């Protein structure tokens, strides 16, 4: 929820808000990500439900003051359930003119703008393309503006420690954080502790940053600012132990958990690529889980190394994004042909080609389902929230091992970098994954199948009496030897297809995520759009519209009941962060006139735009 209409003033004299959306924006060097993380931690400790999303520049370290060098971090925290980082900020912190220029358009009318007037120098204004200083004049009259020379005040606050000017300026973000803590009544202590840990090698920096933090807070206390303070009470979250988690971390941890749930070692073959690299980085820290990470020479070697490891009895995993995914297709095709388990995680980004590497998109779905030569069916699933990445990663491993098949897990840049509070599961409560290697030579051949799952038996090198050869040429259904026989080829193609189709009986039926089981309109989504669709549908229902929301996690095969479910609605709308991909599959498979609502801007859906589209659809 991003609406924040004032409620009764609380005892504290603070204005109580159900929720608030805050965005920190500044130069890459201004430490906005750190500020955001600390502000998030504070909100979490205050028991708010929340969602965050960082927005990095594509450049590593863009020159200071430039528009493309602006780095942002948005948090939506609330006393109610939160599903997205929010559409429009209630509060915008702009550390320089470029940050103001690129972010002001999103700030709510009447929202609060906190600007570091110290950075509004002629040079910076020019870099940001301002003729005149927007802090002067009335161009900002639609907003409540706090123009503060944060630079000067920070330098003053830390002068005892005589740091270099550069280092002194670096403390600006903590000064700002202190002010924001004052504004929302958060304790400083946790951040103080964090600073002490973070800079332990440099005591002067510890002192300085703490001084800045306190100065910012004190400034709020003392300075004469005609402005009331806010309070966002705790949310009524399900009981449990929580942590804040991002999508890439959750994916990595799900894979780690899978090693223990299955008792198998894991080999990750990966080649760095934005926004997937962090999964490689995270997994490389946990060798004690029996995980080996191989940074391969390219994506092809990465998938091949993972498949080789799978042949040898490991959980073979490879992680990548769009362009790398395209390169892996031939290797995945071999995995289909030899029927070995393989997990491919595609953390989608903006395309085509190199496209918008740091932006989000959902446009690899059709590539995942159809992007291989000949008939090479694989299982495709998707995660819908950062926390959900954990469970879908485990699911990907489970299905791959049980069906001896490649499983593609789709997440995206929005999930990868977004974060949310997450109720920590107990390992004991996670479903075990049982794996049986073939050991009995009696009547063995490599393509003997489980009559129910159609999975072939997995006989790994080292097993006595089961030496055998496999490869990419077609094989005889009955002996596993190479076969070019026409009927056998058709039988094998059908068998591979049926094996994947059969997975539908092993995964949950499609449920209605929000709303009635039938009605005028079903909004059908998949992947990272979960939060925005849910909130938009919620608003529509609040207005009494007959709309429901169903969100698909299993994309190939689709849930066995999906066809019936769709037919219970007059109309189906499919919002996707692409030009319309799931909608193609739905229309083809069920012949329902599902309508596409495409968005390809490298940005997630805003709740408001979804809301309007749903309303207009229903009126049309």
């Amino acid at each position: 929820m991003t609406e924040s209409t004032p409620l009764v003033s609380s005892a504290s004299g603070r204005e109580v808000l159900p929720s608030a959306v805050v965005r920190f924006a500044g130069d890459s060097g201004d430490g906005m990500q750190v500020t955001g993380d600390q502000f998030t931690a504070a909100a979490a400790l205050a028991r708010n439900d929340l969602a965050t999303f960082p927005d990095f520049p594509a450049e590593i370290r863009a020159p200071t003051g430039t528009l493309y060098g602006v780095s942002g971090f948005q948090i939506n925290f609330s006393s109610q359930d939160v599903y997205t980082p929010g559409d429009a900020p209630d509060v915008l912190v702009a550390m320089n003119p470029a940050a103001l220029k690129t972010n002001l358009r999103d700030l709510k009318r009447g929202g609060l703008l906190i600007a570091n007037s110290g950075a509004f120098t002629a040079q910076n204004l020019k870099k940001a393309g301002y003729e005149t200083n927007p802090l002067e004049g009335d161009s900002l009259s639609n907003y409540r503006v706090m123009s503060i020379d944060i630079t000067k005040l920070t330098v003053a606050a830390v002068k005892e420690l005589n740091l270099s000017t550069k280092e002194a300026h670096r403390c600006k973000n903590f000064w700002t954080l202190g002010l924001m803590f004052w504004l929302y009544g958060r304790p400083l202590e946790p951040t103080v502790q964090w600073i002490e840990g973070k800079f332990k090698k440099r005591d002067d920096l510890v002192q300085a940053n703490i001084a800045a933090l306190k100065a910012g807070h004190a400034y709020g206390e003392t300075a004469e600012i005609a402005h009331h303070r806010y309070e966002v009470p705790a949310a009524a979250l399900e009981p449990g132990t929580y942590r804040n988690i991002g999508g890439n971390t959750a994916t990595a941890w799900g894979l780690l958990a899978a090693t223990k749930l299955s008792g198998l070692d894991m080999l990750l073959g990966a080649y760095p690529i934005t926004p997937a690299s962090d999964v490689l980085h995270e997994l490389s820290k946990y060798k004690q889980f029996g995980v080996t990470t191989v940074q391969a020479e390219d994506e092809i070697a990465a998938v091949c190394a993972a498949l080789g490891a799978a042949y040898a009895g490991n959980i073979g995993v490879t992680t990548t994004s769009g362009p790398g995914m395209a390169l892996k297709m031939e290797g995945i095709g071999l995995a289909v042909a030899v029927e070995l388990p393989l997990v491919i995680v595609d953390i989608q980004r903006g395309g085509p080609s190199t496209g918008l590497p740091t932006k989000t998109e959902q446009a690899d779905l059709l590539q995942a389902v159809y992007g291989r030569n000949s008939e090479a069916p694989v299982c495709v699933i998707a995660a819908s929230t950062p926390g959900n990445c954990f469970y879908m990663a485990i699911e990907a491993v489970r299905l791959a091992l049980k069906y001896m098949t490649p499983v593609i897990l789709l997440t995206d840049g929005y999930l990868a970098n977004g974060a949310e509070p997450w109720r920590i599961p107990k390992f004991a409560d996670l479903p075990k994954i049982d794996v049986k290697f073939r050991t009995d030579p009696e009547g063995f051949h490599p393509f003997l199948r489980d009559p129910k799952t159609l999975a072939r038996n997995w006989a790994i090198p080292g097993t006595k009496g089961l030496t055998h050869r496999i490869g990419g040429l077609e094989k005889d259904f009955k002996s596993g030897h190479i076969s070019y026989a026409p009927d056998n080829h058709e039988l094998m193609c059908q068998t591979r297809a049926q094996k994947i189709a059969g997975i539908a009986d092993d995964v949950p039926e499609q449920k209605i995520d929000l709303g009635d089981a039938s009605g005028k309109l079903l909004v059908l989504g998949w992947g990272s759009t979960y939060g925005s669709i849910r909130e938009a549908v919620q608003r529509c229902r609040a207005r009494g519209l007959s709309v429901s929301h169903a969100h698909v996690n299993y994309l190939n095969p689709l849930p066995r009941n999906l066809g019936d479910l769709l037919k219970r609605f007059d109309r189906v709308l499919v919002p996707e962060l692409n030009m319309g991909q799931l909608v193609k599959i739905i229309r083809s498979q069920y012949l329902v006139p599902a309508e596409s609502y495409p968005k390809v801007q490298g940005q997630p859906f805003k709740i408001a735009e979804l809301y309007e589209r749903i309303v207009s659809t229903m009126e049309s």
Partner: protein
Amino acid sequence: MADLIEPTRLTKKDFETDQDVRWCPGCGDYSILANVQRVMPELGLPLEQIVWVSGIGCSSRFPYYMNTYGFHTIHGRAPAFATGIKTANPELSVWMATGDGDGLSIGGNHLMHCLRRNVDIKILLFNNRIYGLTKGQYSPTSEVGKVTKSTPSGSVDQPIDPASFALGVNASFVARSIDVEAQHLGDVLRRAAKHVGTAFTEIYQNCNVFNDGAFDSFTDKAVKADRQIRVEHGKPLVFGAERNKGLRLNPATMTLEVVDLAAGGVTEADLLVHDETNSVLAYMLARMPYPAFPVALGVLFCELRPTFGASLTTQRQAAEQKYGGGDVDALLGGGNTWTI
């Protein structure tokens, strides 16, 4: 690596499969297969501990004919698969068969990275200087001017010398032999098997259908003694039917000379002595201009160096000692958490 001295009960027969071999009659691949099957029992390893990996090509059909575990993968990628297999299970003895196209054209990059990582696998590159399976196009080892289906007016690219390539990317073991030289090939294979690290062996192989006689000029009985030099560590570089020729270094120009020992004046003492640990010497021997110089065969280079797998195992053990076996609850519960 198992001790090669230890006798084993396996024989050549045990390594043969029931599949009939589908190479063209007369193909050099047959004799390579036979020699490998002859040497394999000496590894002293049970069949199930051996894995043969290959890409695509006539040469890459090899695994189907070895009664061990085998993976016939996709074109050019065998080194990556082998890396995954060996890394996943260091106990396995992993062997790879590839061709000059599979290994050096589409697969050159994977081969290069496998060599520099020193993954403990044994690589046999069947060099017939042609694409056999696709019916005769020139390959990266074909000589300039090669007339093939795809180069009716002759190929224009400089060939690569596989051994020079391997040395340039820091291979730890580089050797050369010939398909039909049973004794020599056998010895080289034994050395390769013994080597801990990536053992790269180039085998000149005759494709009697699309590039027949490619190596005759130095493999024919009549001339081979004078056209080949079989290097041995610590031995002077002597060759010739009467062992009367040798290689001498001209230190001023840093080039080699062929000298005649018979002529008198020059003695074995003047010759270069092969030192298989000297990468520069190996590089020099690998690329001697032919036919002015003989073709160097045998183990050109061999150096012991930590393997990819050994280093990874060390890191893993260190992690296990430090953190124990990996605890999911501890993982998920670490860092900032709060309870409601």
